[in-house]
């Protein structure tokens, strides 16, 4: 019952947050210098064409009227029509969103699995050569800019060894092909974040491994793997999950680079195109989807605390 109440309250807060975000976004993007009509027409912006296009796009109406039109459309589930592509924003986002979800999930999975394994290894081998080497490797991945890592992966795995394709965008229903196209972009996105997860895991776990209950477990003769993964890991998970939640949100920002390097469709590139063209409806739509993603991820992270640590109560 407490969980249901908590979920409902979070859902209401989430909807309110999204409403505030899209409202701020609606007005903020119109404060950015540059007019979509001017961008669209460029050198061909004769006064007649400017007037015709402004009216056709509804930009001649007062701002508050435009805002209410936007809200009315939103209530009907309509995100409007992209000014630049003259196509439904829902359609454009719908076409690229599955690519973004796949990339985000694969990137997060890689960063978590690799990060946790490396972090746990470094903690167990605290102050050893292995610890220093693995933490140095993490620092390297953290420091390499995303586009450099992307190009490096392409050079090695696509051009030199021909294991994966250069082009990360796939239009296929074959699961095998999906994975082939996804692997390098996901590695490029996930490896940098794996470094952060590893460092975080290591520092938390070093502390846990020095605690009394671990010493007790050791004295009872439990195996190292049981101690690390069953006892120590559980206590590091709470802080790890909150950090992973934040990282997934931060990853959204890294999408543009990864999608561009790997010629992959996605929300990051779509948003970048929208900003360049001052395509207000597409910008609003993209911001809304990103806001929903952030709210959902935050909610899932909060929800997972109770599962990881039964002492946490939902109120």
């Amino acid at each position: 019952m407490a969980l249901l109440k908590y979920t409902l309250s979070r859902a209401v807060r989430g909807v309110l947050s999204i409403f505030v975000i899209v409202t701020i976004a609606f007005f903020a993007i119109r404060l950015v210098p540059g007019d979509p009509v001017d961008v669209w027409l460029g050198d061909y912006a004769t006064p007649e064409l400017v007037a015709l296009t402004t009216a056709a796009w509804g930009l001649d109406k007062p701002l508050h009227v435009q805002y209410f039109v936007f809200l009315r459309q939103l209530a009907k589930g309509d995100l409007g029509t992209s000014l630049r592509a003259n196509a439904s924003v829902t359609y454009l986002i719908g076409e690229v969103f599955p690519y973004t979800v796949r990339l985000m999930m694969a990137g997060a999975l890689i960063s978590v699995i690799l990060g946790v394994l490396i972090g746990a290894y470094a903690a167990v081998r605290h102050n050893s050569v292995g610890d220093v080497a693995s933490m140095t490797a993490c620092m390297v991945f953290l420091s390499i800019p995303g586009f450099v890592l992307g190009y490096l992966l392409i050079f090695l795995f696509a051009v030199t060894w021909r294991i994966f394709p250069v082009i990360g965008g796939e239009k296929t229903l074959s699961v095998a092909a999906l994975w082939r196209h996804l692997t390098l972009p996901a590695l490029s996105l996930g490896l940098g974040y794996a470094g952060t997860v590893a460092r975080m895991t290591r520092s938390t776990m070093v502390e846990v491994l020095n605690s009394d209950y671990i010493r007790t477990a050791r004295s009872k003769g439990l195996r190292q793997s049981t101690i690390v993964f069953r006892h120590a890991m559980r206590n590091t998970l709470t802080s790890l999950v909150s950090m992973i939640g934040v990282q997934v949100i931060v990853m959204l920002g890294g999408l543009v680079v990864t999608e561009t390097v790997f010629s992959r469709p996605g929300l990051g590139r779509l948003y970048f195109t929208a900003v360049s063209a001052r395509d207000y409806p597409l910008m609003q739509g993209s911001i809304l989807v990103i806001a929903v993603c952030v709210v959902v991820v935050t909610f899932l992270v909060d929800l997972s605390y109770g599962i990881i640590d039964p002492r946490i109560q939902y109120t």
Partner: protein
Amino acid sequence: MKRAALVVCALALLVAASGLMGRAESVLRVRLANEIVNLDYANSQSVSDIVVLYQVMEGLVEMDWTSSEMPIPIRGRLAKSYEVSQDGTQILFTIHEGIKFHRGYGELTAEDVAYSMKRIMDPVVKSRIATYYAAVQSIDVVGPYQVKVTLKDSSALTFIQALTWNGASYITSKKAVEELGADFNRRPIGTGPYQFASWSPGTGVYLEGFADYWGAPEWGFGKPGYDKVEMLLIADDMIALDALETGELDVVGLVGKGSVERAQQMKDITLTHAASGSWQHLTAFNVKRPAVSDVRVRQALAYGANLKAIADRLGPMEEYWPCPFNPFVFSATTEFWHYDYNPEKAKQLLAEAGYPNGFTLKLIYPAVYLWGDVALELGHYWEQIGIEVDFEVIEYSLYATVRREGDWDASVASHTVFSPYLYAELYMTTAFRNYTGYGTLELDALIQEAAATPDPAQAEVLWREFQETVTNDLPYIWGPVQVAWFAISNDVAGVIPVAFSTLVNLAAAHPAP
């Protein structure tokens, strides 16, 4: 006996199965450098729109990119002939018979021709190329395959030149536009060798060979050489070349600095380029500003920049071409350019103009294409003659607005058209696109006269006079032009490079024998 019968049956099944399976699909993979924006021929915007539409649509007239003549000859494509009246006020287009539209939209008729042309002029369509049709008075169907265009003046030659570019004479099916409505900008219907199949945002555009393609016998295209064409969106030149190397792409148009040099190192590809470039860098001077309003200062800036060295330094993609028109344009000539690099003369002219110690020049440019490189090169030379250059990078989206507002002395941009008049418009006092503020009523009259001269020989004399005048007055420094280069897999033959960015003509492309 039984075994023999079984073997015969097995063989028969095998033959039947292979017949059912048919031959493997042939697919040509072509690089798109940027995202599709609008596939309505009247409103195409990005280079990729132009690249896609070039394979799907056909124009009444077209430039013959297989020719080595300069300026490039214009030929009819859908038009079997076009007759210009003696006074240059009327053009009678006669189209080929029996040409089919894609997706079962029927046969191409004069009705479709008139409709497609009038559509560009329709204010509701808000076409960016409506100005190309400014001189049109009426478009009339005079027979099942004949359309007469009547002009307000005798500018038939100019109008035909304008029709060769930007889809200005692309013909679509009236029925298709009416049926598809708002979707027409994402489902173009034409008569070209490849028909549009789908657009996947962020991924690319997919075309299918059009089995009923008429083959343009005069051009010798024949049936499409591939079952499918996949045009894949790859923004980065180097990644596109990687994909060519691994066999994921077959045709890569190159746009970035250093890409030609990289392609030169690659094996199993053919590196080819158009005869020259049409994408011409223009450095405009804002003649309303104190210093650059003086023609001696502008001349000093021309003498002070080594344009040949700049073109060389920018690599094989850039070609020295100091002319108000690009090399393919009717009457284009560099013979009036007399500002060979001479820094001493530049300093002398600056002193004569009252700037012996130079002045501060605000040079604006967006960091796109090679515009920034051109701006930095020019600025570097101008600093050597005592000019203090204030470089300012402007976001590309805001560039047209900033240039119109006029707070700059010099600005770098590029321009491609294939009609002298559409170039000359930039210099007219009445033109909205005249950012420089330069122009005189006499020059306006000369441009109008040249545009309305139907006789090519006389028109050439007038256009040469125009080029001489503006080369003396220098509201712009012209060039270099960007040559279109293509890296093509050796498995592919018949690709025709077009002298604009990544544009290729795939009508004759086929698997190499």
